[in-house]
């Protein structure tokens, strides 16, 4: 396959016009001894038909979670995506457009992203939101750099009940800047130990990070963490699940300074963990410190409303080494997906997604409580994900579940050995049915199930 349209004749004519006798002469600045000799070892070109069948064969070597009863979560969720999202995203006016550097011919992208910012602002109850970042982990890392720049201190407190993958991203982002990350342990009930947090705050910190819900799915006493942080002059950064915000208090209500999170739940397929959508919202006074793109409304020369990228002087292409972050290409199309998703669902639909996820996960929790060989180490203060502990190793339960067509959850044995052997994180989204919950229970109860 070739997507090049010039013919040999075109090329010859063009070389003639340029005034060289051959392509080799044209690349004279590249010394001959540096040039590749012979062909790359990449195989022969393929026709479209061959590419399709080759890739389809690879795809068939996978068993997608989306086609099973998946109880996997830990940051990526199996949610229903309305057809409107795929339809809008598949329009080439959106997906083959570039970063809106020429605003007058990019009003579609710009307005959509402005509306996305608005929706994030409303969900989080914060003053302003930026227009998409890479994922929750990098958004949180950037918010940490932002907080340290605002407070001119380089110590931050992070809950120990945080995704270890996110934690590792924070560590790699912080290492060069000598930012110290300290963990706030959890109490027996799985939530932040406020006394420990207070003790850790006796030394100056730039920010306290609150994961709401935390990695175990549990809801924290956000207001208490917030007053603690603010009382000691630290910022509060809330890492939130956007779907949970249909029900639980949003960061703005407990006076968070920065709110970040993962937007994958908002109309983006799981796709093996990427592309994702990081979001970030903040208070008015910190907008100019905020990384990434921002879209603003303005007027054109005739006074007509329009949209532009704004505060670009914070960005790398102007401020270079003084930029607030290095983000250039972001996740624009994913932000559009989130906007279309939220527009389609509306207030009620979105709330229904959250309610069903909560109701179904709580139902499963009830169904598991009291089963022999099953412990529920933490209480019912969770949103849609909870920890369950089996008597045997987690892998034993998970492989039995798998045989019945169920992805039973995420083993916590490696990341949180302190939870003991057999700990599994179970996520229940709106897509799960009562029948699937019953199947889960039967497997957990050790029954032989056939599907």
């Amino acid at each position: 396959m070739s997507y090049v349209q010039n013919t040999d004749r075109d090329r010859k004519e063009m070389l003639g016009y340029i005034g060289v006798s051959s392509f080799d002469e044209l690349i004279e600045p590249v010394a001959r001894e540096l040039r590749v000799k012979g062909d790359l070892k990449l195989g022969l070109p393929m026709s479209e038909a061959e590419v399709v069948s080759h890739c389809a064969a690879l795809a068939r070597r996978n068993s997608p979670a989306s086609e099973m009863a998946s109880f996997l979560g830990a940051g990526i969720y199996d949610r229903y995506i309305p057809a409107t999202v795929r339809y809008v995203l598949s329009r080439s006016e959106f997906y083959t457009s570039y970063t809106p550097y020429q605003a007058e011919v990019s009003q579609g992208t710009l307005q959509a992203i402005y509306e996305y910012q608005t929706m994030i602002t409303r969900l989080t109850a914060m003053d302003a939101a930026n227009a998409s970042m890479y994922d929750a982990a990098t958004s949180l890392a950037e918010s940490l750099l932002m907080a340290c720049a605002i407070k001119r201190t380089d110590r931050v407190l992070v809950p120990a009940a945080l995704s270890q993958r996110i934690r590792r991203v924070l560590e790699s982002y912080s290492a060069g800047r000598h930012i110290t990350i300290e963990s706030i342990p959890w109490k027996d009930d799985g939530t932040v130990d406020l006394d420990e947090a207070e003790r850790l705050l006796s030394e100056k910190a730039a920010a306290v990070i609150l994961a709401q819900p935390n990695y175990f799915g549990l809801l924290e006493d956000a207001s208490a963490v917030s007053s603690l942080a603010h009382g000691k002059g630290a910022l509060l950064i809330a890492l939130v699940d956007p779907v949970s915000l249909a029900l639980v208090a949003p960061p703005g209500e407990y006076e968070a300074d920065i709110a970040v999170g993962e937007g994958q739940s908002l109309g983006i397929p799981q796709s093996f963990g990427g592309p994702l959508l990081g979001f970030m919202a903040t208070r008015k006074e910190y907008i100019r410190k905020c990384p990434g793109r921002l879209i603003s409304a303005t007027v054109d020369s005739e006074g007509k409303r329009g949209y532009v990228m704004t505060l670009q002087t914070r960005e790398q292409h102007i401020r270079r080494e003084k930029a607030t972050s290095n983000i250039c290409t972001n996740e624009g199309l994913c932000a559009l997906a989130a906007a279309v998703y939220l527009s389609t669902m509306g207030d009620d639909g979105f709330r229904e997604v959250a309610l069903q996820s909560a109701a179904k996960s709580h139902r499963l929790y009830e169904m598991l409580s009291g089963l022999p060989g099953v412990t529920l180490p933490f209480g019912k203060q969770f949103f849609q994900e909870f920890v369950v502990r089996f008597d045997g190793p987690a892998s034993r339960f998970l492989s039995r579940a798998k045989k019945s067509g169920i992805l039973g959850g995420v083993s916590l044995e490696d990341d949180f050995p302190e939870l003991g052997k057999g700990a599994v994180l179970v996520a229940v989204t709106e897509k799960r049915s009562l029948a699937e919950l019953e199947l889960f229970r039967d497997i957990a109860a050790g029954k032989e199930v056939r599907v």
Partner: protein
Amino acid sequence: MSRTIFERFYEGKSGSFIPRNDCPVEGLDMLLTRKTPTSLPVVGEQEVIRHYVELASKNYHIDKGMYPLGSCTMKYNPVVNEEIAGLSGFTGLHPLQDETDVQGALQLIYDLESSLCEITGMDHFSLQPVAGAHGELTGMMIARDYFRDRKEDRKTVLVPDSAHGTNPASVVICGFTPKTIPSGDDGLVDIEALEREIDDKTAVFMLTLPNTLGLFEKEIKKIIGIVHKAGALVYMDGANMNALLGIVKPGDIEIDIMHLNLHKTFSTPHGGGGPGSGPVGVRSHLGDFLPVPRVLKEGERYTFFSDMEKSVGKVHAWYGNFNVLVKAYAYIIALGATGIREVAENAIINANYLMKKISRHYDLKYPGPCMHEFVASGRNLKQYGVRTTDVAKRLLDYGIHAPTVYFPLIVEEALMIEPVETEKKETLDHFADVMEKIAGEARNNPGILHEAPVTTPVRRLDEAAAARNPELCWPLENSE
């Protein structure tokens, strides 16, 4: 002007999209603590579609016409790649599924890594970074940990002034101190300046190759020699690699670390600004520092491998923008060795052809052969009171997207132009004709340029007002 989605509100109903609730809600009171409404738009499905179709009509995009945006590289996006990337065998994967369930995905990652190694001459690649700048940051982390491991205290990164703006920003985010190396009159690295600035505190020399002026560093071997002699590493910003495909392998000329912009070089749609993918490649002495996990092949089985003590850790929660990797993979296997080389040849021929045509009416600060892009200057139009912005806006009236303007910063009134390899000669001729017409208008009727654009959905927008008084969201009180 389009109504916002919030103004399309009516006392209507949203459809029902999710399964019926067969687990009625009880005892969730402790959860329901939100006091303020979410205030999302409430519109029916048909209104949602109409809204976004109306917005779509206000966008320029590559399927409509060319994007001569230098440095940004937007070429034709093969439509079949969207179909392939949309297969549920790819989109439906959860990142924590058992390895046995994702063998196809792991194989794709493994094979794409191998192809990128073959194309660049590097020994290892990590596909985890999700954008070019993210790759730069990862590369800097690798350098940081490499020197830490060797117990060498090196804190400076030398960056030529012709480097992309993300380069110095990435350097700072990683905790290094950037120091600018000026370019000479020929637009290439001033080697004397490099020799003067480099010392035993230099960690990295960070080079954009070809540079943002579209020039290949003729003395690259000498430069690399100088840097290595000082004990520092050479980082190559390989976002412009489409000029070098099948022509130069950076690994073979001893570049130590590089990133690629898959969304540019290997053609994936940019979606109004992303997602992208910025894999990082290293030569073998730096392999241990790549982010985890890596994918290994044992016999016919593919596995994840995380047990790397010296790894920089993670730069993304999972394995990068997998869906983008699928598209780049499909593109590479479609082209094969000959097609890949053909990309570079046509990108370079197109750029030089267009440069020569345009130079009849616009200044060229650095004449002579360019690679896949070149920078012209509109400074000769200043005498008529016309600026580069005016030229850009006038192009929009002619139905063509504008080049990158005012970048790189080292060229006055810069117009950075990259035709890319998929544009046909006739398209370039048309673009050059329009540029000529605009130069004529500047001389004879500059008012037309100041007024431009007139045919676009909105006229020239007041960016200064937006920056002074940003309005970043639709006010709640206007919503209903």
